[in-house]
């Protein structure tokens, strides 16, 4: 599966990329919201993983952009905030899954797998 990950912390981003690549996915990375939006226009990933708090455009922008497309793709939202209201808000805005930081890369891989099964 082709996955786009947007995360501003470079090593966390690299960790996710590496882990998902290990599972055989093709991973494109963006360092911030702006880059993510630009990459989305060029590539057509089948899944988007995005952090919420990023410089320039926030993860919410990315989420909104993806969900506006004619063929919306699933979006997993990563966030340091885990309160109930925040999670509910994310789902209201269209998120398909929500992972709180600190997260385990293996868990992320598992969640991604769920979407792989869905896609196929």
């Amino acid at each position, binding site marked *: 599966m082709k996955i786009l990950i947007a995360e501003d912390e470079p090593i966390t981003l690299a960790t996710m990329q590496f882990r998902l690549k290990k599972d055989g996915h093709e991973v494109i990375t963006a360092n911030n919201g702006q880059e993510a939006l630009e990459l989305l226009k060029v590539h057509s990933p089948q899944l988007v993983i995005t952090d919420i708090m990023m410089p*320039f455009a926030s993860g919410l922008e990315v989420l909104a952009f993806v969900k506006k497309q004619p063929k919306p793709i699933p979006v997993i939202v990563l966030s*340091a905030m885990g309160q109930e209201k925040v999670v509910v808000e994310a789902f209201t805005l269209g998120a398909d899954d929500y992972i709180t930081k600190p997260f385990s890369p293996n868990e992320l891989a598992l969640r991604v797998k769920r979407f792989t099964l869905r896609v196929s």
Partner: protein
Amino acid sequence: MEFLYNLFNYGLLAYAVIMLGSYIFLGTLAIAEANNYLKKSKLTDYTLLASSPYAPSVSILAPAYNEGANIIENVRSLLNIYYNHLELIVINDGSKDDSMAKLIEAYQLEPVQVAYNPKLKTKNVKAVYKSTNPVFHKLVVIDKDNGGKADALNTGINLASHQYLVCIDVDCILEQDALLKLLKPFMDESEKKVIATGGVVRIANSCLFENGKLVEVNLPKQLLPRVQPLEYIRAFLLGRMAWSRLNGLLLISGAFGAFDRKIAIEAGGYDQSTVGEDMELVVRMRRYMAERKLPYKVTFIPDPLCWTEAPATYKILARQRNRWMRGTIETLKMHRKLFFNPKYGLLGILSYPYWFFFEFLAPVIEFTGLVIFVILAISGLINWPYFLALTAFIFIFGWLFSIFAILMEVATFNQYKKKGEVGKLIITALIEPFIFHPFIVWSSIRGIVDFLRKRNSWGEMTRQGFGAPAAKTQAKE
């Protein structure tokens, strides 16, 4: 006669010395405060504020008048701020363009009935709108008759249901964590009540924006907008930081500030009779607390959080400065009771007099001096070498202060990182006294004259838009 002459001389000398001295004093305080803030900020994870159930609840008030061209974008940008307890209230102040129609369409708005008790008197509210789309549930749009910025804000205050108000200009671009940083001071005090917090307004000219977010900072290319960051750095980083430390801050920029809603209402909301409504409200809120002997604080955040466009032509700049001067005078007049009044503590003993003497009187004295100089020059009474030396000194001192401000900026937030930008800034500082400052003095004098003539117009601010060639106008009446 001799006595008066000497008194006048000594008086003016004292004035100059005190002013120079206070600049140095404020400068030093500002460094300490900015340094303190930066250190604290590095240790803070602000995201907690975005989600904690006990974080301050906020109503953002954004008055809009004929912003048609960009209103959808601006609202969208504001809606994408990540903050949980937030409502965004856009107040359409009787725009003559299609702003309202655009909003209704883009955000799927429909009129709703809201029961609320309007505590402040405002012009008629035509309707209140909310979105049918749950994605936009934070948005509230008020459609009302034109009444000016203060009136629009008051309408917003009436309807707002949250603890704190953040008043912004709708075309101000906010940084991602602007709201979080602006609100934290309200959570930081345990002894005093923080009633208002101000943020820094930065110059957006020539900066790149995309999707309503700042993408790249550039020093303004045009000359006139280029001088203004320098001015703002001096005023914000050196001036307001220092006043904040002293807890004597009188002014919070109308473009971006947060207020305690309850206190704002009890103090009476924005006053519509002045064009300097932002400053006037802060002074009045301070008075309110001081009169009730309640310990309070007005703080200031030096982080560059909000970006707005600065006037690029002399004409518009003149109007802006004219308005600022009128606003200052009106506020000073309305609160003249504070003048050297010990009942109001620092506010009365230091802040108000400082504002009176060095913000209001300064251009007057300078202008008068110039006139006298011309007269004396014609009469051949000038000691030229001495005069030139003195002038040189003053200019050099001014440059020193500006360079110091630039140094502060580089040491703290260092927004102008591109090659040569700091150099250009320094050169701008050098030519400022020739191409910019006299013009400002002149506009201020015009402002005083207009005040005396009791003209009461907001003037028009034609903006160039963030990159767009279309012009927008904003008029009060």
